[in-house]
């Protein structure tokens, strides 16, 4: 006879762990299935951990979670081929406990999180891939794994299987993914002695720096790049929309190689030992790409539900929050003795709408479409900005008024007055709420 649980959680990433932990903590019988050899073995993230989301699930996570550095400085760079214009925000505020953002290494963090899930009472089984959902008509009644005798039943299945969201697609709960809604990111981890990192970035023990980058690093494609400091390593990577990669001839690793050779980046990683290379999809379609997230006997959380705020590089926190809200929905139904039917599970959607998750996605609803249609934000402007900075800073006997006129003229020559005004408007529409 097939085993039966209150809840089956598919996937042991941020969303799956948050869901399994919350359900188990509330006393539900939980089975979590992960295809990787260990939790985290398949997961890719930059990675910045936002304390707020995990704190709501495990308030004392700081006691024993494997955290690399807390972030005290954020740099934003617009890169040209061989220059960069940027801003830096560094504050002692970020050095006061409790810290707000940390760098983490997912392989370590996920194993820690999974231990918590197991201690909370969930059964965690790795190296078992869920191949399909078991359906009774339209109702999900369990899953089938790739193992012999792999049918397992549950009152509710929480799909936290990550960006590809294969299971929901197979079951016909959502359409095929659209390459214009997915970014492909590649990243590497470079090892350096702790002291070298601390002196190169002017930081103390446990303090960290983030550099967010845009401009020529993406070779005209819609995307961004990043560099984060860990304890004894530096993570750096670049991600662009899949639809753009399809059009371009440049491969993701060429892009990353070019980025590493950039004169502003090369000295930061010089002499390092590259130990890890990974590539992963990031759902960046935003609000309009979010599929149906609940139905009879099922809920979707995390990347599988496209819950990523691409503009702010937030994903793991949305994954944890949606995982937690999915769990709370099931817990409330169980407590009230109600079945996990679609109308009852619709409470999940209401919770999402009420949280920062859907509010933020809604605020940036127009951004993906606008950036897709206006590649000048990733090509022309970085170059113009760099030229402007160059003109202003270089002392060469030309008077400042003339310099300003020159800058204005290059902008108008490249984009026309009307172009500039409409670009400014578009940019504002992309990032401002309605």
């Amino acid at each position, binding site marked *: 006879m097939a085993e039966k649980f209150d809840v089956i959680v598919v996937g042991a990433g941020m969303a799956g762990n948050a869901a399994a932990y919350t359900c188990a903590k509330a006393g539900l019988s939980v089975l979590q299935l992960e295809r990787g050899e260990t939790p985290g073995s398949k997961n890719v993230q930059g990675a910045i951990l936002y304390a707020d989301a995990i704190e709501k699930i495990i308030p004392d996570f700081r006691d024993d979670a494997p955290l690399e550095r807390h972030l005290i400085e954020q740099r934003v760079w617009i890169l040209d081929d061989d220059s960069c214009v940027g801003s830096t925000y560094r504050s002692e505020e970020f050095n006061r406990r409790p810290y707000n953002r940390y760098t983490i290494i997912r392989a370590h963090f996920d194993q820690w999180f999974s231990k918590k899930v197991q201690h909370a009472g969930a059964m965690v*089984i790795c190296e078992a891939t869920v191949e399909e959902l078991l359906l009774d008509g339209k109702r999900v009644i369990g899953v089938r794994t790739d*193992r012999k005798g792999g*049918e397992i039943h549950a009152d509710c299945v929480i799909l936290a299987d990550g960006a590809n969201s294969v299971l929901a697609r197979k079951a016909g709960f959502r359409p095929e993914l659209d390459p214009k809604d997915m970014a492909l990111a590649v990243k590497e981890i470079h090892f350096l002695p702790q002291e070298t990192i601390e002196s190169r970035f002017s930081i103390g023990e446990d303090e960290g720096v983030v550099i967010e980058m845009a401009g020529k690093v993406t070779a005209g494609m819609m995307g961004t790049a990043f560099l984060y400091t860990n304890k004894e390593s530096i993570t750096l990577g670049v991600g662009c929309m899949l639809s753009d990669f399809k059009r371009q001839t440049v491969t993701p690793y060429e892009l990353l190689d070019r980025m590493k050779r950039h004169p502003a980046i090369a000295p930061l990683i010089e002499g390092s030992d590259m130990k890890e290379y990974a590539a992963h999809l990031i759902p960046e379609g935003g609000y309009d790409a979010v599929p149906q997230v609940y139905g009879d006997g099922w809920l979707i959380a995390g990347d599988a539900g496209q819950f990523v705020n691409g503009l702010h590089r937030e994903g793991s926190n949305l994954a944890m929050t949606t995982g937690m809200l999915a769990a709370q929905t099931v817990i409330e139904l169980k407590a009230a003795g109600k079945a996990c039917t679609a109308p009852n599970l619709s409470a999940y959607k209401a919770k999402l709408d009420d949280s920062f998750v859907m509010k933020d996605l809604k605020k940036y609803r127009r951004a993906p479409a606008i950036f897709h249609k206006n590649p000048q934000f990733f090509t022309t402007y970085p170059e113009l900005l760099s030229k402007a900075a160059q003109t202003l800073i270089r002392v060469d006997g030309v008077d400042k008024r003339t310099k300003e006129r020159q800058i204005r003229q290059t902008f108008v020559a490249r984009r026309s007055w009307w172009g500039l005004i409409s670009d400014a408007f578009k940019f504002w529409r992309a990032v401002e709420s309605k």
Partner: protein
Amino acid sequence: MHSVVCIKQVPDSAQIRVHPVTNTIMRQGVPAIVNPYDLFALEEALRLKDQLGGTVTVLSMGPPMAEAALRKCLAFGADDAILVSDRAFAGSDTLATSFALAATIRKIQENMPVDLIFTGKQTIDGDTAQVGPGIAKRLDFQLLTYASKIVAVSPAEKRITVERRAEGGVQVLETRLPCLITMLEGTNEMRFGDMADLFRAARTPVKVWDREAAGIDDPGSVGLKGSPTVVSKVFAPKPRAKRAEIVETADNDPAGLAVTLLAKVFTQHPKLDRELTKTVG
């Protein structure tokens, strides 16, 4: 049938390096795996169980993290898992390791007699191939090393027949039980456990025994104190200074090539040139 399979958690040696300056082994970040040879032993034990019924117990001595290796073996189908773990075991050589494992198996026998003990041929980190024979000797078990196949086991007659790969051919050996077998590599293929195995593994706690639970009274008989072997130095072999040289041949002219090669050899080794001239005259 009760089989005990000894397994060791080892760093994946494909990924291990010796630090060029300090000469220490760099284990950091190297994933830990079950010693590959031990999996052939486990699969052989599981096949016997499929055939004759019985119990398969997996046993490991190691730090707490070795529990992961045992969990993996449970998921393959083992019934029971014991980790002997104690600070007192740190630094054990093969003498101390086989002493501790033998003591533990004696303890296991108090609950259920053991018919067969399996070990791998050797480990990929220690490479001594001594632990299996050491256990057999201490428990007074028959010993069959480098087995490539279990041909037959008769629990009623307490007999076992195995094939053993030896120089120049395959030996067929027969002996009585209880017996310890060290398994060669490449002899079988590890199974993909059923869902039921995964559930059982998830529900079976790994028993952790400390020194006393393993029946070892004298702490001096294990660990560094119980280990006469001393690793006095570890070093990486010096990379060869000289690279192989590739000599191009223009047209199909073996005689010309031979002359070129000989000329190269003699210019690089003038002493050889002198001596040859002396003897040949």
